[in-house]
């Protein structure tokens, strides 16, 4: 049992560090956001493992969920400016 807990902790630590490096190093913004969400999830697992359920709760809610959704929304807003779409344009694109 003790060795299994050790494996668990080492895996969590290793993947946290790796995820943090990947998140900082990647050039693709969408990939960075998804990696950030993953970092939040693994961080929440680590807090749960550290017997801090309330911090894990806050991390999962704010770090992974809310911030992830807001970042995705922001990326969509900055990558494609809202183009005016009249019905005639739409049929042109479809045809």
């Amino acid at each position: 049992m003790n060795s299994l807990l050790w494996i668990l902790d080492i895996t969590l630590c290793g993947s946290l560090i790796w995820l943090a490096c990947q998140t900082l190093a990647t050039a693709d913004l969408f990939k960075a956001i998804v990696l950030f969400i993953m970092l939040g999830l693994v961080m929440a697992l680590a807090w749960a493992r550290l017997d801090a359920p309330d911090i894990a709760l806050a991390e999962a809610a704010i770090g992974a969920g809310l911030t992830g959704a807001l970042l995705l929304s922001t990326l969509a807003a900055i990558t494609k400016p809202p183009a005016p779409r009249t019905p005639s344009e739409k049929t042109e694109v479809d045809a």
Partner: protein
Amino acid sequence: MTHTLLLLVVVLLASMIAGLVRVVRGPTASDRMLAAQLMGTTGVAVILLLSEATSRPALLDVALVFALLAAVTGIAFVQRYQAMETGE
């Protein structure tokens, strides 16, 4: 019993790490987002097993929030899916 549960936690964590490969390599945005959703679901399972193995019922709330917030990121992605795919 506790030993079995912890073994299952380790196996699920290994499957999460395998999902990370898809997040890093996945060619399209949907691949990455779906891998993230899968990992959210696996995270719920990991927390539930951990709460049972270490007998900490407080962790059940964390699992609940995990399940809820994974859906929120999924919805945020689907809402902006068109812009994401054409933006790449």
